[in-house]
């Protein structure tokens, strides 16, 4: 089994630990990942504000490169990228004139679309869930986490087509449960954290993140699991600022792939947990 792997801007900087843990998980499952050589930034949060045409062109150019590699499925772990790839595909297909213009600019004609998949969608197949279950080496059943999906993965559902309920998704919960981690019901699964305003409107972002963390605390979670580099950074780094305002959470924010890797027995030293701002290693130690 092999997927093209769009290992994009954020996975090489703010989300290095996401890339690292993801590689461990897919290696354990014996699934090969191949990075396209000629990738470029997909323009995610930036391009659509200035030019909707550019916002479609950049992801589709990347998909054209993947098509040329002879691969028909690409895994896109960054949810901002995933969102833009899916929107660009649906806009191209929805408008014949646009389709023609886009194909002329990227100098490529798709015979059939490249299938864009988030790692959650790949891992949630019955086959992969069963394999994950059989590979568990470490008991993490004492961990109670909330699965935070954020916004870009699930919405707008008509475009992203993420294979789950957009208002109350359970994909990440099912995967974490398969490796023995408990997940809790809570109300902020898909509330936006305000990620793209992180450096321009910290006031708004702190308000949104504190609401999410409040609800996680209220249901008794010891940690948050996320599938997105923006969410991870935002929920993690802002806790220090919130603490200064008297709101102390001390709630580690893990990539879901880090939790899976830990359950599969990847040693802590091989992961990059030290890159988290809220200390994330102490909740792993069994307390009961």
């Amino acid at each position: 089994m092999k997927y093209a792997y769009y290992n994009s801007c954020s996975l090489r900087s703010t989300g290095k630990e996401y890339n690292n843990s993801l590689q461990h998980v897919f290696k354990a499952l014996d699934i090969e990942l191949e990075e396209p050589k000629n990738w470029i930034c997909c323009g995610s949060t930036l391009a659509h504000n200035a030019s909707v045409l550019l916002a479609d062109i950049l992801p589709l150019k990347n998909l054209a490169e993947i098509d040329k590699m002879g691969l028909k499925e690409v895994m896109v772990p960054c949810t901002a990228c995933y969102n833009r790839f899916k929107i660009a595909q649906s806009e191209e297909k929805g408008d014949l004139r646009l389709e023609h213009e886009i194909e002329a600019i990227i100098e490529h004609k798709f015979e059939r679309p490249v299938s864009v998949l988030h790692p959650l969608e790949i891992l949630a197949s019955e086959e992969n869930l069963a394999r994950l279950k059989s590979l568990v080496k470490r008991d993490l059943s004492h961990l109670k986490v909330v699965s935070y999906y954020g916004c870009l993965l699930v919405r707008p559902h008509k475009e992203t087509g993420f294979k789950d309920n957009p208002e109350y998704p359970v994909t990440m919960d099912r995967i974490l449960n398969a490796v023995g981690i408990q997940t809790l019901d809570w109300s902020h699964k898909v509330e936006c954290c305000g990620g793209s305003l992180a450096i321009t409107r910290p006031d708004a972002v702190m308000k949104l993140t504190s609401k999410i963390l409040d609800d996680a605390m209220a249901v008794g979670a010891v940690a948050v699991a996320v599938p997105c580099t923006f969410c991870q950074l935002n929920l993690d780094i802002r806790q220090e600022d919130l603490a200064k305002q008297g709101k102390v959470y001390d709630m580690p924010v893990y990539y879901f792939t880090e939790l899976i890797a830990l359950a599969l027995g990847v040693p802590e030293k091989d992961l990059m947990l030290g890159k988290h701002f809220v200390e994330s290693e102490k909740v792993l130690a069994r307390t009961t």
Partner: protein
Amino acid sequence: MTEVTAIPEYYLTPGHISEFASNIKAMHGVDANMCFQCSKCTSGCPLAEFMDMTPTQVIHAVRLGLKDVVLNTNTYWLCVACGTCTGRCPQETGLLKIMDALANIAIREGITPREPAIAEFYKTGLSNIKRFGMMYEAGVAGMLSLKTGTLGRDMGMGVRMLQKGKLDLVPHFQNSGEMKKLFKKVAKKEQEMAGS
């Protein structure tokens, strides 16, 4: 006590379609006239409390053709494209695309943004990916802080991220020649479309 200025009342007559709404439909394929003002978009919008005009009001103003009023709000700059409005809209109006359309028009027409830092962030970020072919976060953050005069405020966060090795100080080039070519082709196409 501040004087309360009278709020003008606006009415839509049946069948009325504003030129502004028509232009947005032609350019961006999204029809504001589908909206029946249920306000589901606003009640789900995470940023609504920070906005000059709620999403529901924006779409109504677009239908009325109040272009200057709409373009001078901070609403479309604060939109983070989380898709809650669009995902929940019973009329499938596509407010998300209307917000994009407003930003596109405002930039093209040189409207002074009501959220200068956010507008500058997008502009700086975009010229950054054009130059390098991929995002150079440290460069964008630094440049933005200098331009908006928030260097003091942002320094702490930058230092924390550098300490964790989450930012690279040196930019990497990633297929940047191709990126520049695409920017050029898109600009040319957009000029043609605006002229037609």
